[in-house]
């Protein structure tokens, strides 16, 4: 169940719409737990969306992106069956990756 990503990639004319949901706490480092101990910062810092192994959108994030992040992007030139991936790396060096094919 590690670093899971849910991806949907759908064609609308010549545009491929990608929607991704990532499993990540996106902790700011500013919160405290119920015992009053600080919860360490843990957030996705970098996200990449690729189409057939070519980067189409790349993001740098701060901790202000919400927990279990959602990302929607669009690109041209996709065909049904093409591979789309979304991958992330967080501030602790952990990574996650998901893959789907365009419908």
């Amino acid at each position, binding site marked *: *169940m*590690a*670093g899971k990503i849910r991806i949907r990639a759908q064609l609308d004319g010549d*545009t491929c719409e990608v*929607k991704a949901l990532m*499993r*990540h*706490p996106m*902790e*700011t480092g*500013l919160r405290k*737990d*119920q*015992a*009053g101990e600080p*919860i*360490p910062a*843990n957030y996705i*810092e*970098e*996200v*990449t969306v690729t189409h057939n192994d*070519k*980067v*189409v*959108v*790349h*993001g*740098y*994030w*701060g*901790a*202000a*992106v*919400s*927990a279990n*992040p*959602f*990302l*929607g*992007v*669009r*690109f*041209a*030139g996709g065909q049904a069956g093409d591979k789309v991936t979304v*991958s*992330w*790396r*967080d501030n*602790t*060096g*952990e*990574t*996650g*990756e998901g893959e789907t094919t365009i419908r």
Partner: protein
Amino acid sequence: MKVEPVGGMARRKFLRVGALIATAVALPAKLWAAVTKPDAAFAATDLNATFAALGQTPTESAGIIFTTPDIAENGAVVPIKIEVDESVLPGVSRLYVMVEKNPNPMAAMFSVVEGSKPYIETRVKVAQTCNLYAVAENKEGFFMASKETKVTLGGCGG
């Protein structure tokens, strides 16, 4: 007096922050080398300093279509959508999301590779009622659209 966590002091043993996230795939330390992270902009603690770190205060542009809710039920998750009218603002290669009154206004920056649409949907934390900014960058410089989102106090207040 220290308030004990509900459920006792036993340390959480499952699905703790980070515990869930094992390294499933070996990825390079950086996912993409083409753009470096503008660390100063992410570290800035007010909007003007964020703009300064990017190098320019953006000018208002009707070419940015920025959708956020007028009023959010919860500031922890505020959906945003940025679209660009490419007939007004062509060649946009970067999009930025900023939340004026967050501890660090810069929430996210996106590089849009040629062939991709300057289009982003995501969800951000908004600490208190304030303006949200969508900033677009092209060869001409920086452009922006802003919109206020009201964050309400929820539930029983406790």
